[in-house]
């Protein structure tokens, strides 16, 4: 059975205090009468011993300390078998002296200390303490103390003690309660605090206004919680980073697999074509007899493979090129777009370019790759031989819009940025162009989207401007 520390402490204190009180009261009550007599004897003995020298020098008894020693004590100076002087209450007459001495000497409780012998007797509620001090031959001081027994006082004391006991018991209970609370409360609070720490809840702080050992304990606990919290946070961060790294590695792995598959799939076809052409040319079979004509076709196929490899390389090396503080001028695009404009011309597509110069947070090369890929995509899929490139300048951002006539199904819009996804397999390319756009935007944390707008397909990228310092 679990008993709380408060209950334990309370009952231990209550029992201890009560026992102490009862024991001390019992001892005091039982010893009171005896103590009173003992104290009287001590005073009388001291008075006799201290007055002995004066009495020897014939000082009268009432001029010595004996006169004030005890009001219940009779002092008799007895010399040469007769009473010389007597002070105090006249309890003992001269004719009773012999019997007094007989009782004194026959007492089994006779105590002798040097020249002083004394004995105590209790008879009919009266304590009789008899003394004899021997100065020399036939020269004695006889002393008799009669003390009324304190039995009645004891009874009164008992009555007082009962009332007192009730009061003291009540006080003891309150004190025990306070002490128990004082000990148990901090322990309970520390326990609750420790439990919350064990559940990794570091939001609470333990505050106790104490100036004892609890204060040290609480300081140590708070320090421990702080250290634990920091360590836990670091561990958490490390775990997150690890998960991210693992996820990244998985993605990389996926990319590699996809690359291999793509290479396998995309490059094998032109390679087979090239192989077939060259074999035909070597053997001089059919139309391949005219080598000069078909060598140009072989070159086209080789260029196609080279383009594919370039795109794949970009896809793999993008992150290496990017830096957080990259900056470039949009006007630089004018020069970099010449190639794609030539490509459009071959495709018999017109390109409208409207770029407003501004500084943006992106690597110039990556910006060019991104725009060229968007442009190529628009050129390949436009339905009216026109592609528009324009920028919109805002306070903190620049919107780059590439627009072409056409429509993309909703189901395709969701997948359009996935790697190696192609809307029309009749069109050339690996399906990595928009995937490269997506990667670049994610590196620089830019918004990007492709959507349908009134028979047009709009590709929009929002680039951030550098912060003004």
């Amino acid at each position, binding site marked *: 059975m679990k008993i709380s520390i408060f209950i334990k402490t309370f009952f231990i204190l209550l029992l201890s205090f009560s026992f102490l009180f009862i024991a001390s009261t019992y001892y005091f009550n039982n010893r009171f009468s005896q103590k009173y007599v003992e104290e009287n004897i001590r005073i009388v003995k001291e008075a006799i011993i201290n007055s002995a020298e004066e009495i020897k020098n014939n000082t009268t008894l009432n001029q010595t300390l004996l006169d004030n020693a005890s009001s219940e004590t009779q002092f008799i100076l*007895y010399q040469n*078998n007769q009473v010389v002087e007597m002070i105090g209450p006249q309890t003992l007459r001269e004719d009773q*002296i*012999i019997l007094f*001495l*007989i009782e004194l*000497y*026959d007492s089994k409780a006779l105590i*002798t200390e040097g020249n002083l012998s004394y004995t105590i007797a209790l008879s009919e509620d009266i304590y009789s303490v008899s003394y*004899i001090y*021997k100065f*020399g*031959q*036939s020269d*004695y001081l006889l002393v008799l103390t009669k003390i009324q027994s304190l039995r009645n006082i004891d009874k009164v004391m008992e009555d007082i003690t009962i009332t007192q006991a009730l009061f003291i018991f009540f006080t003891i209970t309150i004190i025990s309660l306070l002490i128990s609370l004082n000990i148990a409360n901090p322990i309970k609070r520390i326990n609750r605090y420790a439990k919350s720490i064990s559940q990794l809840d570091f939001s609470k702080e333990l505050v106790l206004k104490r100036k004892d050992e609890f204060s040290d304990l609480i300081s140590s606990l708070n320090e421990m919680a702080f250290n634990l919290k920091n360590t836990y946070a670091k561990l958490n961060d490390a775990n997150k980073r690890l998960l991210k790294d693992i996820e990244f590695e998985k993605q990389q792995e996926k990319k590699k697999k996809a690359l291999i598959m793509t290479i396998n799939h995309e490059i094998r076809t032109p390679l087979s074509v090239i192989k077939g052409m060259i074999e035909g040319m070597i053997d001089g079979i059919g139309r391949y007899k005219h080598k000069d004509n078909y060598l140009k076709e072989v070159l086209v196929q080789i260029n196609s493979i080279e383009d594919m490899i370039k795109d794949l390389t970009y896809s793999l090396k993008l992150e290496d090129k990017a830096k957080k503080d990259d900056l470039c001028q949009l006007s630089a695009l004018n020069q970099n777009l010449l190639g794609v404009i030539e490509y459009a011309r071959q495709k018999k597509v017109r390109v409208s370019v409207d770029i407003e110069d501004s500084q943006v947070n992106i690597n110039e090369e990556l910006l060019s790759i991104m725009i060229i890929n968007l442009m190529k995509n628009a050129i390949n899929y436009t339905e009216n031989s026109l592609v528009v490139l324009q920028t919109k300048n805002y306070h903190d951002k620049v919107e780059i819009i590439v627009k072409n006539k056409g429509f993309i199904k909703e189901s395709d819009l969701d997948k359009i940025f996935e790697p190696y996804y192609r809307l029309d397999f009749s069109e050339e390319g690996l399906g990595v162009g928009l995937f490269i756009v997506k990667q670049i935007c994610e590196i620089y944390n830019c918004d990007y989207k492709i959507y349908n707008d009134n028979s047009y397909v709009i590709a929009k990228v929002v680039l951030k401007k550098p912060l003004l310092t």
Partner: protein
Amino acid sequence: MKKILVLLALILLMQFFGCSSAPYHDTVLFDRNLDYSYENLNFDGLNQNDILYYTVDDYIDLEIMILEALQRDMIEEKPLNLLLILETLESLNSYSNISLQRLLKLSTTELYNLAMSHSVILTVDDIVGFNDLKATLNLLNESISISKVDYIEYRLGRDLTEEEIEGFIELQYYYNNIVMYNGQLLSDMNFEAFSSELNNLYDSPNEEELNRIEIAFEILKLLQE
């Protein structure tokens, strides 16, 4: 025959035992010490042939022992009223025939009652002295022995002369011989009878020795009274 021999051997053995337990007369020397007996309350243990044998007295011996103990620092002070209580006890002894040993074992009440029964009035000094004496005896447990010369001097209350000491030595010497040959006891004789016994001895004293023996003899008789 064998049985007769065994019987004779047993008879002889018994004879030897009988001879060994026969009275043996010690040679008593005067320079031997006297030992106090706390049980008998006197300097007892004396040989019957000792010239002091009949002089010991419980009351006087007790007093001598206490004085000797005091001199040897065995007790710090003499019991109060010693002579007085010894006198009282002696008189009670004479009335009641109770020995000193028994008297000193009585309680104060018993002593008081005994005194009252013989019309002896005890004083405060008697009671204090009686209890002081008992307390002193309780303190003493070491044996006390004194020389015979010291004992006689205590008894006489004076020092013995060289001549007197010589006399006591010679008295003891010749008394040893008298006891050995005639079996006469000193207590039963006066000096005339004693000197005639001396004359019967093979080794009798000369006149000078006889004079010294007479002086010692008279002191001894004085102590016996």
